């Protein structure tokens, strides 16, 4: 029988504060969407959640640095993070599923192909294509042109893939106890991620203003912005995480043996990267 003690973390004020601010956030968002009066509440919610996350993680970092966590706690964190990423995978899976369903089934049916092709009776003038330049009801939207995958999106792909590599270099440097190199590689990762976001912004403006590719532009615009938008959101969150990790690196929080915070952030970044490759292939190229 083992005689080792279990470690149980102390209770904390952060979870309940997180609930309160998330509540504000939801209430504010709902109020804003329905009556346009919830912006302040929404803002309080967002800032509150940010504050809570900072405080909560700071506590965890402090406890970790104090050496309170045992191997079991470490495993719990790892599994927690792994399953969280799995849940994110499924979140994106729903959106990719949407894209495939629309392209493989819905649009051909609307155009008179396949098992439900009789539907074309309702849309006699519609021709399915991808990207969908003109919607079945032409009054909904038509798009001027499509995003060329081999310009900005390709650059973005290279940027993100490179950033994954530089992050891995940073990790190796960390494990080899080369602190300065580790934070340099991390800084490079941050820059790559930042440039990605800027380019994405440029592309959005181009699509929205010049191509007529908007959220309202039928299913192509809807899926385009849904997938890239949620991915962009994840990049932003990932970038925020990496900034925190970089600062912690500078303060020497990580040791070659113990740096789960770093690894969790890295997992997340790689995940975001893999999702992008999927996006590049199925949203832009094919």
């Amino acid at each position, binding site marked *: 029988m083992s005689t080792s003690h279990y470690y149980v973390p102390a209770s904390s004020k952060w979870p309940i504060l997180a609930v309160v601010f998330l509540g504000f956030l939801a209430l504010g968002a709902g109020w804003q969407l329905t009556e346009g009066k919830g912006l302040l509440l929404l803002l309080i919610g967002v800032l509150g959640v940010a504050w809570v996350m900072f405080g909560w993680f700071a506590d965890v970092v402090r406890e970790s640095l104090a050496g309170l966590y045992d191997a079991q706690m470490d495993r719990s964190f790892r599994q927690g993070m792994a399953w969280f990423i799995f849940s994110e995978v499924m979140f994106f899976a729903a959106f990719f599923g949407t894209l495939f369903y629309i392209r493989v089934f819905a649009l051909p*049916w*609307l155009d008179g192909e396949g098992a*439900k092709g*009789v*539907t074309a*009776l*309702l*849309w006699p003038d519609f021709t399915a294509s991808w990207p969908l330049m003109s919607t*079945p009801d032409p009054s909904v939207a038509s798009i001027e042109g499509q995003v060329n995958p081999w310009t900005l999106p390709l650059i973005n792909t290279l940027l993100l893939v490179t950033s994954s590599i530089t992050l891995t270099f940073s990790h190796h440097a960390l494990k080899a106890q080369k602190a300065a190199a580790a934070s340099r590689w991390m800084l490079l990762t941050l820059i790559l991620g930042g440039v990605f976001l800027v380019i994405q912004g440029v592309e959005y403006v181009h699509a929205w203003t010049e191509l007529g590719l908007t959220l309202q532009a039928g299913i192509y615009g809807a899926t385009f912005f849904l997938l890239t938008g949620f991915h962009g959101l994840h990049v932003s969150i990932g970038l925020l995480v990496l900034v925190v990790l970089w600062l912690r690196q500078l303060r020497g929080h990580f040791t070659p043996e113990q740096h789960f915070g770093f690894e969790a952030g890295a997992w997340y970044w790689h995940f975001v990267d893999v999702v992008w490759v999927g996006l590049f292939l199925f949203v832009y190229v094919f």
Partner: protein
Amino acid sequence: MPACLPKVWRLLPAGFLLIALPVAGSQVNTSSGWNMPPGVTGISQNIFSLHMIIFWICVVIALVVFGVIFWSLFAYRKSKGAKAAHFHENTLVEVIWTALPLIILVAMAVPATATLKQLYDTSEADMDILVTGHQWRWHYQYMEEDLSFFSNLATPRSQIEGQEDKGDFYLLEVDQPLVVPTGQKIRFLFTSNDVIHSWWVPDLGIKKDTLPGFINESWTRIEEEGTYRGQCAELCGRNHAFMPIEVKAVSPEAYQSWVEERKAAAASEAANVDRERSLDELMQRGEEVYTTYCAACHQEDGGGMPPAFPALKGNALVQEESGRQQHLETVLHGRSGTPMPAYSDTLSLADIAAVITYERNAWGNNSGDRVQPAEIRELLDSDD
């Protein structure tokens, strides 16, 4: 159950269920009120026999399982001094009770597949009918004839609200049934104007969702003349319970003469558009149209249900001259962002004129305004 009663009383649920199941079983074959109707088409009868086979399989499995359980409960009571045995696995038994259901299921899958393929075979139909779901009525269009109409609930509000006794076909009766010939293969095309509805007539074995923007297919060949009733089967908003289906199957000859009659009536209505109508005539027809199409939301008394459904009674738009144009536009084209639909394609010119006249004069609105069908036609023409 008090402890003083014999322990065996604790087996009451056993009794209840063991009795309930066979009772249910013995009733189902005889009384149509308890069971799925066998229906009047080949498909519906195939479905019925699938249903009965799987039902009896389930009953037998239930009796065996429940029998063993209740017998065990009775025979191995601790109070009787039963000592527990020590087995906890038996590969042979487990293989049997895994394989046996598998075999039964495969046996069921074969006829089910055959029926399903039959159900999906819409080829070589003699005629096509486009069924469109609307909130909350059905629209039928005979694709080969120049013939289409709406079919509305005919049960009066007074029966629904309990001021009057309910008739035999309460909530299952319509103003204009779908009339079809017997013995012909009829292909149905289903679509919707707004939300998802589902067109269901049990006796025909057809239930198919009507999707906005898409078309589903099904078919039937009715052998027996008669009236077959059904209902919308997919929640479609507040009046989901109030959009029944009535299919009248008649001989091909009777069907032909019905079609001619309908066409003649439509032609005479069209020819009559320019006739000037009196206020009384408009009001009378308007009330009928209002009850059928408007009262569900704006209420019988014009009081509406604010904020979703504004009151028409005392409404400036409906009462005053200045609102007249907008009133007409609203009825014809609907109001976007609200549940108010466009009626220009739904109602005839005469109906639109009548209902607007009615709204402008009923419930003390008394504007004295008359709207003539010709005016509506003009308005629609100028829009184009």
